[in-house]
């Protein structure tokens, strides 16, 4: 009957736009990401991402409303900002955006640290000889 149950994350992953949907989802799988929040203002590949994420058992949530955080990251949080922060606390989450400032604004709201998905180490593979 543990009383030290770990229910919240400490980190939020961030990834910049620019790679193919296939490459991005492969990266998410490597980091065991549960949820991708798409905070780009325009996302031509959102249908493809939705399909690939579904196949990868990963939530995909397009939230263009969050793109505005890039211009005004310290604005009073609105419902979209609060929603993304609450989700990031509970799910191993990655924010896809044109600038990392969006993820930073979300992380700051609930005290998460940012991990750049491009610079995150890949999981160590344990092999038997």
């Amino acid at each position, binding site marked *: *009957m*543990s*009383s*030290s*149950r*770990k*229910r*919240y994350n400490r980190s939020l992953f961030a990834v910049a736009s620019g790679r193919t949907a296939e490459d991005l989802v492969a990266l998410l799988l490597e980091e065991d990401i*549960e949820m991708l929040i798409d905070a780009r203002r325009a996302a031509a590949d959102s249908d493809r991402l939705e399909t690939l994420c*579904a196949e990868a*058992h*990963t*939530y995909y*949530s397009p939230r263009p409303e969050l793109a505005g955080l890039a211009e005004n990251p310290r604005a009073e949080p609105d419902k979209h900002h*609060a*929603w993304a922060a*609450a*989700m990031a*606390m*509970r*799910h191993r989450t990655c924010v896809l955006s044109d600038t990392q400032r969006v993820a930073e604004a979300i992380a700051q709201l609930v005290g998460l640290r940012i991990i750049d998905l491009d610079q995150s180490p890949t999981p160590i593979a344990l092999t038997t000889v």
Partner: protein
Amino acid sequence: MNDFVAWTGEPTDLSLALTGLHASRSYSVEGQTFRIPTREDYERALRESGAIGPNDHIVEHPQFVAAAQAHWHASGSNGCVFAAALSASRVDSGWETYVLQSPVVNAAVAAHAIDVLCRPRVAAPEAEVVSVLMPTADDADTIARLLSCLGALEHWDVRERGVEDVQGIGNVVLLGVRAEVELGHWAEVLGFGSFAGQGNTRLAPFTELAIRVKEPPRPRRDHRAYMAHIPMDLDKVEFGSWWHDTEQQRAARLGAAQDARAKGRVTFALEQGAWERIEGDEGMRNE
């Protein structure tokens, strides 16, 4: 929130008061007898300990109603090892309890109040389960009307999951309640209370809707969310062991005869007459 008293305690808060608790209800399944405490047992123990007055009723004390129900879960009476552990550490587990202060006179009003209570808890990261206790809603007609009204609300779904002919009771309708949570998922709601037809693992002292208010860690094709998704910090061996123990407890307490009535998809098993009496009552939802 004025309709509800929020309880933020732990079942151990009642440890001293319940030293004299005697479980008077028993049931036997395939030769094995189980004893479970009733509302009257908790009331008696609380009186004897002086926690409530000699003429007081437990339903007049929402905090004791909540603590007694939490104790019932934590003591393993519901047959689920996971639920027992979660109930033993309510605050850590994010299992919130709200006691409806007034009787369910108007089912539509009560259903609306439950919806208003639950919606913000769906969004709150700290909430895993919201239990709504209705200490005076003890008859099947009242619950049937409440469920019908809940099912008419936007974020709720109530449907029949089958009918069983139960010896000594007659036809019992299996009703499944689901609540919409985030990301397109629907959470199965567990119902507890001492109604005729309920499976043995649901015979709690007070009527309760236990609502899982979170989506699963990863999306499911069937969009189902349920209690087993609650984070527990168990390693695979522990998880497997608890799962095995739960399966054994469940089988022992329910037997084959009650298995369907206590599945996760079934919230309440009520006498069919109670459900039929409210069906077709078109005016009821607009009371």
